[in-house]
């Protein structure tokens, strides 16, 4: 901590000089310790690790060493291996760090300059220990644009962001470009929305600029309702200044002076860090009246969402900011003409905003050089599910699903067979194994019956039941449907009833075409994109995994062994070595046996959860079969949809 908070910057040149000075200062450090304090690592206990570092450095009196910096940063993306500690400039990467490891790290690495092998990442495939961040396969194929600063800066310290060049694009845009030039640059970069449908950002801005009216808004969509996606959270938590910077540039381009960031209530740390960043930016004259002395006024407020998936939809989100119930309206009214408070508004996703400053700084051509013909630049993906390396990654568009899942993700958990990857959130679809070499871009995913959405990639193995997945999404959307239009509200209820009976072994073969007909009606008749795409998960699973549906309805069998009403588990006596792994994970105490002796499974106690099956990987001594007389399971009350969640 050598220099104080920047005073108000009066002109762009002051900011530029200050950024250069801070950069040199940061680069002069002998050692920088970065402790990840993103939500993932915090959940793994990284706050205690960071505290331990602060204590230990202080106790040894080395916290005063100007050559040393210690920072609590945002998410490095590799959440699964957290808490993560990275030492720069050598990029020494320690994972699964516990508070008790800290004295040793300070002693041996910080003071002694030696690497501690046991804390290094061990590649599950090559079994090699890897020292440096960029040598880890998870990071090797990544190119970080939207996530360029996350993990490297302390989100609570504006100077850190300035040292990485934050707000230089604002200085350039406001100081040396006309709004039209800004729009042209963004348009030529080919940037398309990173939150949903992939609409051209430049075109959207141009319409908003052209819309009549003095008062306009720019809005950041940080609702991130797609379950399984968490890039927006990481960006807002770990690098809020890039989002603010993007919004200032967007506001200048369209002629807006007020901005909102809509963040989900489930993301308290994002709200906190963003609030902090807004205060810092205001104090430094980067936000508010007369930004950087250029005469342009713009400020941003935070609006906390109330936890409703539909509020991620543009018109519902704007209603929610206005304090109302988030019900969407028909799409023929464009937000760029009549959005928030019925005034022209530009809504973009967090990641889109974060991409903007880089485009302005490095130019449209630089950005457009990455990606595919129609999908330019990079994209953040959250790689989760049954994959070895889970976390956040950013790569150029056009990377194949195979590279993403097998090279970066390290393959499927426990080396089981890959079945599908679900992309695009609840309105997306499941892409099967034969399409693994698909280059990821907006068009290719849509052709495959899925969509880009916000970049959630949920990997599924042979232990994932596709009927159950479709049922899951149907239930999710039924629960989240605002209920305003009939096709969505009733269509989802009916789809859910049909799925429920199929998973209970009471399905009929006619159910499959019935669901397809129902889905087609919803697609044409629903009011907003939620209802129009609500059948996509069902449609894509029926398209690619029809055999699984048929197994459920005709043979009363769940091929993945997930649907409890259709599955019983048993121990294969010849293969059981009495290791006790299954016994320890069985929640219903259905398995008994002495160590090193054959175990027994009591069918009366077994709840068919399959926990034993999943741990018995070396011996494969657990098997599952179709439940006899599955059809005898009593039916649910006819036509009864499950009770709605009471609030």
């Amino acid at each position, binding site marked *: 901590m050598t220099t104080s908070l920047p005073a108000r910057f009066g002109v762009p040149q002051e900011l530029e000089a200050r950024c250069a000075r801070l950069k040199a200062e940061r680069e002069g450090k002998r050692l920088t310790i970065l402790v990840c304090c993103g939500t*993932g690592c915090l959940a793994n206990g990284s706050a205690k690790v960071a505290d331990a570092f602060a204590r230990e450095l202080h106790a040894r009196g080395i916290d005063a060493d100007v050559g040393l910096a210690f920072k609590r940063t945002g998410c490095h993306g590799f959440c699964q291996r957290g808490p993560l500690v990275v030492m720069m400039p050598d990029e020494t990467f320690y994972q699964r760090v516990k508070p008790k490891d800290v004295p040793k790290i300070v002693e041996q690495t910080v003071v002694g300059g030696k690497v501690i092998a046991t804390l290094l990442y061990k590649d599950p495939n090559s079994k090699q220990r890897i020292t440096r961040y960029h040598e880890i396969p998870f990071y090797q194929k990544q190119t970080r644009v939207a996530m360029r600063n996350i993990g490297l800066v302390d989100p609570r310290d504006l100077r850190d962001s300035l040292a990485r060049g934050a707000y230089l694009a604002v200085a350039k845009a406001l100081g040396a470009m006309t709004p039209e030039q800004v729009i042209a640059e963004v348009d030529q970069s080919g940037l398309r929305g990173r939150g949903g449908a992939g609409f051209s950002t430049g075109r959207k801005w141009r319409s908003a600029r052209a819309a009549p009216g003095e008062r306009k808004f720019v809005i950041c969509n940080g609702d991130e309702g797609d379950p399984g996606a968490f890039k927006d959270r990481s960006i807002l938590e770990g690098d809020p200044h890039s989002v603010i910077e993007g919004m200032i540039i967007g506001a200048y381009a369209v002629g807006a002076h007020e901005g909102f960031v809509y963040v989900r209530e489930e993301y308290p740390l994002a709200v906190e860090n963003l609030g902090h960043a807004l205060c810092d930016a205001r104090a430094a004259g980067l936000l508010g009246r007369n930004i950087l002395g250029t005469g342009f006024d713009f400020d941003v407020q935070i609006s906390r969402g109330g936890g409703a998936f539909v509020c991620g939809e543009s018109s519902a989100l704007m209603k929610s900011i206005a304090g109302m119930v988030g019900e969407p309206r028909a799409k023929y009214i464009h937000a760029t003409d009549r959005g928030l408070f019925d005034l022209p508004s530009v809504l973009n996703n967090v990641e889109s905003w974060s991409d903007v400053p880089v485009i302005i700084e490095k130019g449209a051509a630089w950005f457009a050089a990455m990606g595919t013909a129609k999908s330019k630049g990079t994209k953040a993906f959250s790689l989760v599910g049954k994959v070895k390396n889970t976390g956040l990654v950013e790569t150029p568009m056009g990377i194949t699903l195979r590279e993403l899942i097998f090279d970066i993700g390290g393959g499927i958990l426990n080396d089981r067979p890959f079945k599908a990857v679900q992309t695009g959130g609840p309105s997306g679809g499941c892409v099967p194994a034969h399409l693994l070499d698909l280059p990821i871009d907006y068009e290719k995913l849509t052709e495959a019956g899925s969509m880009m959405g916000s970049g959630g990639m949920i990997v599924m193995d042979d232990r994932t039941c596709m009927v159950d997945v479709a049922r899951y999404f149907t239930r999710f959307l039924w629960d989240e449907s605002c209920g305003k239009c009939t096709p969505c509200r009733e269509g989802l209820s009916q789809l859910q009833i049909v799925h429920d009976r199929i998973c209970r072994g009471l399905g009929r073969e006619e159910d499959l075409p019935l669901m397809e007909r129902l889905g087609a009606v919803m697609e044409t008749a629903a009011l907003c994109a939620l209802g129009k795409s609500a059948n996509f998960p069902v449609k894509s699973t029926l398209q690619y995994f029809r055999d699984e549906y048929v197994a459920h309805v005709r043979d009363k069998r769940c091929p993945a062994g997930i649907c409890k009403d259709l599955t019983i588990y048993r121990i294969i006596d010849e293969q059981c070595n009495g290791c006790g792994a299954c016994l320890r994970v069985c929640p219903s105490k259905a398995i008994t046996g002495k160590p090193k002796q054959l175990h027994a499974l009591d069918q009366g106690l077994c709840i068919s959860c399959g926990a034993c099956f999943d741990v018995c990987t070396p011996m494969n001594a657990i098997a599952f079969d179709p439940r006899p007389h599955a059809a005898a399971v009593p039916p649910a009350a006819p036509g009864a949809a499950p009770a709605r969640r009471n609030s």
Partner: protein
Amino acid sequence: MSATAAAPAIPEPDLAPVDAILAGYPQTETSLVQVLQDVNRTFNYLPCHALEKVAASLGVPLARVFSVATFYKAFSIKPRGKVIIRICTGTACHIRGAPLLVDEFVRHLGIRAGETTPDMGFTLETVNCVGACAMAPVVIAGPRHHGGLSPADVPDVIQGKSDDD
């Protein structure tokens, strides 16, 4: 849906904090969701009389206040337990076994999702993704996140134990 049927009558809490919250916002309908967020956080739910106060102060019909209060998932109009256990049932958590965790919590606590134990100790909720998907399945018990849980870990989570204790 009489989730807390067995719950003892809860005395209406002291509403003084509501005035303080209202004082921090412009007195217009636009502030409604933000005010309710703060009230919900302060009391752990939205007390009925607090809603009346908010309606009067912001000049919004009470029916509209209730409509907003029951639309958003973050709000509860019923008192909730001391510890709120939120099981993530987002996609990543679902395929890594969240439904089994729900079953286990239901079994151990004797309540269904959305309900509160009669002693007001626990409220069980399911949420659609908390953004920690890389550590699926995730459960948030009170302030603590727990990742990578299996059904056998459920009793420890209820007792507030964690790995680093």
